[in-house]
């Protein structure tokens, strides 16, 4: 891997230039020793002697009227403590409000804890059983007799908007939850002077994030309130919501997102019914209650993503210039719309990509169907927009006889055109205005990586193999506000505590935030202890999603650490009898005197160096902290101790970018496709820890390739989900993913002090487009059109029969 730092004068990236010596390095992770030895704490690891266990009774029907629920047999089973239905919850049952309302969401519908009158998808919660263990809870759940009157179900996007479609919700005509229309420039005008118009329909089907840890909720009555452990991506926001819902003072509800075994979007969803049901039961029964979702539940009770159908038209000039694009698309919202129309808005605003698109017309309808609720999954609408745009770029190339890369180069926004305003409003209500980037440089790098690949492919094809290459570019909005905060505190022990409200699902926060802070305070990395996702440690925050943790929390940590360092220098200066600017923090001590770097101690918190001159004096940082917190007298340095809490709130999102390419082979006999090589060039601004960034990319690409070739949630016509095991919903295995070759450029963001742009979702975004292009190239003798994803061997074979 090489890093090419391209900074734009006067913009961001202080740390990359100066003090944060640890930023940009790849130390091994601080959290690993714990996780590797089985000493992590995941929600199901939380145990209490008197814990009760819950199981949820779920609808087997996609759409049905509930005619009656008989819980008597279940209640009579020994070991069963309670069975709750909607009536038991009263007003606490909901419906919950729509999390993100929008003017264009005309008919938002929130979930309820338990279904009332009707169920609207297979898996919808109908009753909650609480028992002495999970085995008995499941026995009892089987015994809850629910009488259903099945109703016709609305399944499939086009079917759900058909005039005679069954209605998912009363009062929502044609099942349309929201309707959005935006125009940038004048598409119709440019269409009239077109050299070339191309049209196509694209479809992306359903998938699921499928973190290896399912969801889980533990609620423990403690004192007058409640402590909850939830496998969530948004602990602080969840606490605020739950406290309000249950009318509890926030101080009496502590919410902890412990180690979370993967999130990828669905675990940020609020409110899941179980997040209300479990604390409700715990407070009612005055005992700890645990609910751990099982894998079969997960497939129907945790949110899905990805289904959209686009009708696209592009207008192109004779030289391949993209003059305009129009898309009209349907987005499947599932049975409810807790997230409103965030995902299709992201699709609409991601679609323009790295290209100068000045005439853009976009319209979508968000549609209710009798299927599990759709919310965000890594990429969250971005892959769809990129799929449409990149496929059309390939179509333009083909129509004009140009190389795919050449068409893209002719349309790139140029490095001197930033900030580039797309003319749209992004999902965070701020302008969708690209902060920085260098797309031609991405193309250069990608071409450099592909040197030799053309020859390999040519040789393989000469030998009769079906091998092809595809590429895709993207720009993604990342790191949206409103804010995140970090509290940094130096203890008298010299150890540094860093607390943030966001949780972690494997993104290495324990290490990357420590890197940011350790560099500023001049302490060894292992002296920094990061606490995440515990409202008792940090009660402000939003959550870990939308590639925002490094951008927001990273910068907040930087600001807080800077403030603490400044205070440490002030206090140390008084103690060492010098000015603050003469104090240097390094090696866990505050130093004064001597040339820079003199007296570097051997290790962390080392004592005065051997051979130090008389003028070189130092204090351990812990001692400085202790002296800033006197037992008597008055506070000489403002607030006590070495502590600061800082927040970072960006004006708008950042816009990382990247380019991917793949070499794919299709078996001529069987239609099975294999990704032979995969290339990524990536620009996420400053990288705190390149090893961690690469890990994020690897994982994202694996999910993207899974979504392109393996993973598909399949419903039958009645809305039964047919893929509820890992034997039918196919997550990629080690044998399905090639080694991923990566390269980076760095155009720092001017929008934040560290110049970070975010990297969590990058890997997944263009995979659909890249694989589709590579497959078309591999199958060029059949001249196939790949406009649907995912695609399986059967479908590839069918295309080859034409």
């Amino acid at each position, binding site marked *: 891997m090489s890093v090419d730092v391209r900074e734009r004068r006067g913009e961001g990236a202080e740390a990359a230039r100066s003090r944060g010596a640890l930023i940009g390095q790849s130390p091994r992770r601080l959290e690993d020793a714990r996780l590797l030895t089985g000493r992590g704490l995941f929600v199901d690891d939380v145990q209490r002697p008197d814990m009760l266990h819950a199981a949820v009774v779920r609808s087997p029907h996609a759409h049905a009227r509930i005619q009656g629920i008989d819980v008597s047999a279940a209640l009579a089973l020994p070991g069963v403590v309670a069975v709750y239905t909607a009536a038991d919850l009263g007003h606490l049952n909901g419906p919950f409000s729509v999390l993100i309302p929008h003017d264009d969401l005309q008919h938002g519908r929130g979930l309820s804890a338990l279904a009332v009158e009707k169920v609207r998808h297979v898996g919808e919660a109908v009753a909650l059983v609480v028992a002495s263990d999970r085995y008995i809870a499941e026995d009892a759940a089987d015994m809850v007799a629910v009488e259903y009157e099945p109703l016709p179900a609305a399944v499939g996007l086009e079917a759900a908007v058909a005039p005679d479609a069954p209605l998912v919700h009363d009062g929502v005509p044609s099942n349309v939850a929201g309707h959005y229309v935006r125009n940038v420039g004048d598409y119709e005008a440019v269409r009239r002077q077109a050299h070339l118009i191309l049209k196509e329909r694209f479809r992306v089907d359903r998938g699921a994030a499928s973190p290896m840890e399912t969801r889980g909720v533990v609620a423990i009555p403690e004192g007058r309130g409640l402590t909850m452990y939830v496998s969530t991506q948004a602990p602080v926001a969840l606490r605020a919501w739950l406290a309000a819902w249950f009318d509890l003072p926030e101080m009496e509800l502590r919410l902890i997102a412990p180690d979370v075994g993967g999130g990828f979007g669905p675990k940020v969803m609020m409110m899941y019914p179980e997040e209300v049901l479990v604390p409700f039961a715990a407070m009612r029964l005055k005992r700890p209650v645990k609910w751990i979702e099982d894998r079969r539940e997960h497939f129907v009770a945790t949110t899905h993503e990805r289904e959209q159908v686009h009708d696209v038209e592009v207008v192109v000039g004779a030289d391949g210039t993209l003059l305009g694009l129009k898309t009209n698309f349907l987005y499947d919202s599932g049975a409810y719309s807790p997230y409103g129309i965030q995902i299709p808005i992201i699709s609409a605003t991601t679609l323009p990509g790295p290209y100068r698109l000045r005439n853009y017309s976009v319209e979508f309808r968000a549609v209710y169907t009798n299927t599990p609720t759709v919310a965000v999954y890594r990429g969250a609408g971005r892959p769809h927009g990129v799929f449409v745009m990149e496929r059309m770029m390939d179509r333009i190339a083909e129509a004009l006889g140009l190389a795919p890369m050449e068409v893209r180069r002719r349309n790139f926004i140029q490095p001197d055109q930033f900030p580039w305003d797309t003319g749209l409003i992004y999902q965070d209500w701020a302008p969708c205005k690209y902060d920085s980037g260098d797309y031609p440089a991405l193309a250069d790098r990608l071409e450099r990586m592909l040197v030799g690949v053309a020859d390999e492919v040519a040789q393989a094809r000469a030998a009769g193999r079906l091998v092809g290459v595809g590429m895709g570019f993207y720009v993604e909005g990342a790191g949206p506000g409103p804010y995140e905060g970090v509290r940094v505190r130096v203890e008298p022990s010299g150890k540094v505590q860093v607390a943030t409200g966001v949780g972690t699902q494997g993104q290495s926060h324990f290490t990357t935030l420590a890197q940011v802070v350790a560099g500023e305070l001049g302490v060894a990395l292992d002296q920094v202890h990061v606490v995440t996702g515990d409202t008792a440690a940090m009660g402000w925050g939003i959550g870990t999603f939308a590639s925002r943790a490094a951008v927001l929390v990273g910068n907040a940590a930087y600001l807080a650490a800077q403030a603490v360092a400044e205070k440490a220098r002030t206090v140390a200066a008084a103690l060492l009898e010098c000015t603050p600017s003469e104090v240097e923090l390094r090696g866990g001590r505050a130093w004064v005197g001597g040339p820079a770097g003199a007296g570097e101690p051997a290790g962390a918190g080392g004592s005065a160096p051997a051979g130090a001159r008389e003028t070189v004096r130092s204090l351990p940082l812990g001692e400085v902290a202790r002296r800033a917190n006197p037992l008597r007298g008055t506070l000489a340095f403002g607030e006590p101790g070495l502590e600061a809490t800082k927040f970072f709130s960006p004006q708008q999102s950042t816009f990382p970018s990247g380019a991917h390419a793949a070499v794919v082979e299709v078996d001529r006999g069987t239609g099975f496709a294999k990704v032979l090589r995969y290339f990524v060039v990536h620009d996420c601004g400053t990288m705190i820890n390149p090893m961690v960034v690469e890990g994020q990319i690897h994982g994202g690409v694996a999910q993207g390739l899974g979504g392109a070739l393996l993973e598909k949630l399949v419903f039958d016509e009645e809305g039964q989900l047919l893929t509820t095991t890992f034997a039918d919903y196919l997550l990629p*295995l080690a044998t399905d993913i090639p080694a991923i070759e990566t390269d980076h450029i760095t155009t720092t963001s001017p929008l934040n002090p560290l110049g970070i742009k975010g990297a969590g979702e990058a*890997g997944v975004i263009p995979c659909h487009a890249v694989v589709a292009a590579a497959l078309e190239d591999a199958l060029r003798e059949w001249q196939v059109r790949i406009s649907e994803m995912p695609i399986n061997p059967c479908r590839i074979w069918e295309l080859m029969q034409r």
Partner: protein
Amino acid sequence: MKVTVAVNGTYYTREVEPRLLLSDFLRHELGLTGTHVGCEHGVCGACTVLVDGQAVRSCLTFAVQMDGAAVTTVEGLTPAEGELHPLQEAFREAHGLQCGFCTAGFLMTLVPYLAEHPNPSEAEIREALSGNICRCTGYQNIVKAVQLAAAKGGGR
């Protein structure tokens, strides 16, 4: 039913229901929560433990079947707190884990595998890992970790 099992070298005797899965026995009866449960239908591999030295899925085994058996979990790989097994060391070195949920299953699959195959090729490693699903890493750094561990003399 009464069952006596040696887990990580310690004998435990417990009265259990026949239907109790070994995974739940380890986690909830013995408090050995390092073994994780990802699917309970034998595909994801997260719950892999060693039974008499062989990697098996603890979600597809009943605790009562383990009477007299020796079970090793991830907690048994490390001699003492603060130390790491060479394979664990390699995972750390290669960034072979992110959220850490699937990791114990990978380690327990690999320990006997590396003992039997000290010099696996990349393709062989990937095949050996195909019974364990990781959703975070894309496997690349796990493969790298195995290569690293093998280069340093395998799992032992």
